[in-house]
């Protein structure tokens, strides 16, 4: 039987002038590691659900992408992380919005899916659920990177306008 895996690390104003050679190489390496992680699960006969979680965890830990470590800053200089996961077999789903302290937000979404009572948790409640489940926590220093701090400073210098396209992400 065959298996397939597709991943993304975000879309936007990405062209070779705007993407530094370091970002280009770093992002390609990160995508490759995510493919390795998901492919290993699938090649071993694992589920699509475990494979997509494994691939996204790699991308969340990689500072080249806007999620988890490397996430962009909010208007107030904080970090609010969103994630979701869904199983096509059962249509079970787990989602989290505005989580602030779970190292891998997709792992929190998966815990919500596995718990099964709810689909979508947000904010402080989601953070409490994560702690109750003993998920690995991380502080803002883990998530924040110098590059995102620089972009946030640039954003503020530009007057902090809400530019959904200039996402820096």
């Amino acid at each position, binding site marked *: *039987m065959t*298996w*397939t895996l597709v991943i*993304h690390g975000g*879309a936007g104003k990405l062209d070779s002038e705007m993407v530094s050679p370091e970002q280009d190489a770093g992002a390609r390496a990160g995508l490759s590691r995510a493919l390795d992680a998901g492919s290993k699960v699938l090649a071993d006969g694992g589920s699509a659900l475990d494979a997509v979680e494994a691939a996204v965890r790699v991308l969340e830990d990689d500072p080249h*992408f806007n999620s988890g470590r490397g996430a962009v800053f909010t208007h107030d200089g904080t970090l609010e992380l*969103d994630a979701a996961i869904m199983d096509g077999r059962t249509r079970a789903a787990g989602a989290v919005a505005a989580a602030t302290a779970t190292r891998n937000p997709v792992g929190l*979404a998966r815990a919500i899916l596995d718990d099964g009572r709810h689909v979508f948790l947000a904010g402080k409640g989601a953070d409490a659920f994560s702690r109750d489940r003993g998920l690995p926590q991380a502080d803002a220093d883990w998530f924040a990177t110098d590059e995102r701090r620089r972009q*946030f400073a640039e954003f503020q210098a530009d007057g902090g306008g809400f530019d959904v*396209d200039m996402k820096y992400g």
Partner: protein
Amino acid sequence: TVGAVACDTQGHVAAATSTGGVTGKRWGRIGDTPVIGAGTFADDRACAVSCTGSGEFFLRVGVGHEIAARVRLSGESLQVAADAVLAEVKALGGTGGVIVAGPNGDMAWGFNTIGMYRGTASSAGSRTVAIYANE
């Protein structure tokens, strides 16, 4: 935003998406990523979808569910459905991309920006990693 869709050796599909959102977001703004049926959706009867882009537009169109519904109800291919729904997003003024995996092993992606970080792998040994539209 990052995401993955997959089809396993049992023909089941799944989707996952994760994001920090938009630089400078305020008032508790949430985009499409955590909204099931918008930024993330999976149904063995159709496909799995993960999205990235200007979330407000992906929410309004209900991109994940809409792509799956077109595949399930009208028998469109993953690529035709993805392109059609992305065109709706663009018509409303949104930009971004989608990745799609089907229970029969089909894969598709689409994006209306000048680039998307993306990759594919399969049991057939195919593998791609790309960033720019012209790759």
